[in-house]
C-alpha cells in the first residue's frame, strides 16, 4: 500500500466546508468595530499609558486587565513595515495588488495590520504616511476601511 506515491492521473475529490459563524464581540472589540462603522479608529490605553491598536481586553505583555479607556487614534499613520501582495487571494480585502502593512496610527504605540491600496510597490516605503479610506456603507467590520498613501487623498 505504501509505495512511493507517484502523482497519478487519478481524479481529485473536492470537499468544501463552509459555515456562517456569528461572533459576539464583548466590551472592547465591540466598541472598536462600532467606531469603525462610525468612522473613528479607537485604541485603548494600558496601565503603562501605551495605546494599543487594535484595542485588546488584556495587556498582551502581562495579562493584566486593561480598563476600557478608549482613545481616538489616526486616521493617518506611519508604515512600520509592509509586504507587496501581487496576487490577492479571494479572502483579501482588495481584489487588486496592494500592500499589507503594519501601520502605527497617530496617537498609537503599536502597529495595526491592514491593507494599503497604493497601486504599485514603487509607491510603498517604510516610514511613509498613510491614511484611512472609509467605505461608504459600513457595518462595523475591520474591512470598513483600507488605507491609502496620504498624498493620494
Amino acid at each position, binding site marked *: 500500500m505504501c509505495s512511493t506515491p507517484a502523482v497519478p492521473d*487519478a481524479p481529485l475529490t473536492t470537499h468544501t466546508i463552509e459555515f456562517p459563524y456569528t461572533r459576539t464581540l464583548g466590551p472592547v472589540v465591540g466598541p472598536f468595530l462600532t467606531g469603525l462603522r462610525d468612522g473613528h479608529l479607537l485604541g485603548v490605553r494600558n496601565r503603562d499609558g501605551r495605546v494599543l491598536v487594535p484595542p485588546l481586553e488584556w495587556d498582551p505583555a502581562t495579562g493584566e486587565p486593561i480598563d476600557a479607556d478608549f482613545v481616538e487614534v489616526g486616521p493617518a499613520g506611519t508604515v512600520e513595515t509592509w509586504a507587496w501582495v501581487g496576487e490577492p487571494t479571494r479572502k483579501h480585502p482588495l481584489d487588486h495588488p496592494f500592500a499589507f502593512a503594519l501601520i502605527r496610527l497617530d496617537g498609537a504605540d503599536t502597529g495595526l495590520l491592514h491593507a494599503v491600496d497604493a497601486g504599485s510597490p514603487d509607491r510603498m516605503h517604510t516610514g511613509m504616511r498613510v491614511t484611512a479610506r472609509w467605505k461608504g456603507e459600513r457595518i462595523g467590520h475591520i474591512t470598513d476601511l483600507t488605507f491609502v498613501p496620504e498624498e493620494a487623498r
Partner: protein
Amino acid sequence: MTPDTAEPDADGPVTMMDYFMQLEYHELLCPVVRRYAEQLLDGKLIGHKCPSCGLVYLPPRGYCPICVVETTDADEIELADHGTVTNYTVVTPVQYYGQEETEPFVRASVQLDGGNATMNLQDLVDVPVDEVRVGMRVAAVWKPKAERDVSEISNRSWGSAEGCIDGWKPTGEPDLPAEQFLGKAAF
C-alpha cells in the same frame, strides 16, 4: 438551533460580527478507495481481509489497525450484497447550516453475509421507519449501471456506497435473532 445572525441596529453599538468561512479541499483518492469505487461501479462490494486475524474491512483501508499489518490487493475479497441489520438509529435531523434532511431518517449497520464485514450509516428503503428491527434481513438496491456515481466517495468517508446503492430493502426472510447482534456489531 440555527444561530441568530447579527442584525446590528444601524446606530446602536455593534455587538456581533458575521464570519463566513469557506474552504475548499481537493484530494487524490487513495489507491484502495479508488479500486473500491471502480468495483462499486461494477456492482461489486469489495473489502480487504486481514491476512493475520481474518477481520474484513469494507471499504479496504490498506491495513488492519488491530494487527497493525498492511493489506494489499492480494487480500481483496468480494462481499455479499445482502446481510442483516445489526443496529440502527432513527435520526430527527437538526437543521444546521447545509442540512438537507427534513424528516426523520434511518441509519443502519448492515453485516454482510459470509463474514464480519459491516457497512455503517446505511439507508433503508421500502420499510417504514418504525418497522426497522435489529436482525432484519436486507439486500442492496443497486442503481441502474448508467446512474451509478462515485464522485462523492472520498478518503474522508472511506468510501460510502450511496452513489451506487439506493439503500437496503427487506428481503422478507425471517429475522435473525437480535441477541446475536446487539452489542457485538455496531457503528
